[in-house]
């Protein structure tokens, strides 16, 4: 049945999207707490923007290190 293949593909796609969305949501929460320390203004300062970008990318770097650390054992 070609439908079940189509459905299978659809579900895989949505799972992928859900994973990404969860990751973005979690990192936004973590990095918001770290980087936005004052009351939110009408515009981010360049420092806040940079901090958010760095925070997200360093979190990824850290995940890699942690994964490697466990591979070593």
């Amino acid at each position, binding site marked *: 049945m070609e439908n079940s293949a189509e459905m299978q593909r659809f579900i895989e796609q949505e799972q992928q999207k859900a994973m*990404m969305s969860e990751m973005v949501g979690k*990192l936004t929460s973590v990095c918001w707490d770290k980087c936005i320390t004052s009351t*939110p203004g009408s515009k981010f300062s360049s420092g806040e923007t940079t901090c958010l970008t760095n925070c997200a990318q360093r979190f990824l770097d850290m995940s890699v290190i942690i994964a490697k650390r466990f591979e070593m054992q």
Partner: protein
Amino acid sequence: MDSFSSSSGPPPNTEALMDQIKAQLAQAYAQEFLETVGNKCFAKCVTKPGSSLSGSESSCISRCVDRYIEATGIVSRALFSSTR
């Protein structure tokens, strides 16, 4: 409802099911986002709850919501569209 009886073409309910799943997922994402934004902005803007929300608390909340949406975009770009 007698669409099942037609012998040619895929059963039409696959697409309907996908649409339904998509709609429910969209609602779930929105709900989760709303909850998170609410928690973050309440923490930032309503530090000492009074008998009603003050004007400055309200404007802080609307700025906070805008910034949180912006932050989501920044984080998302940092993760997915960077050439690293």
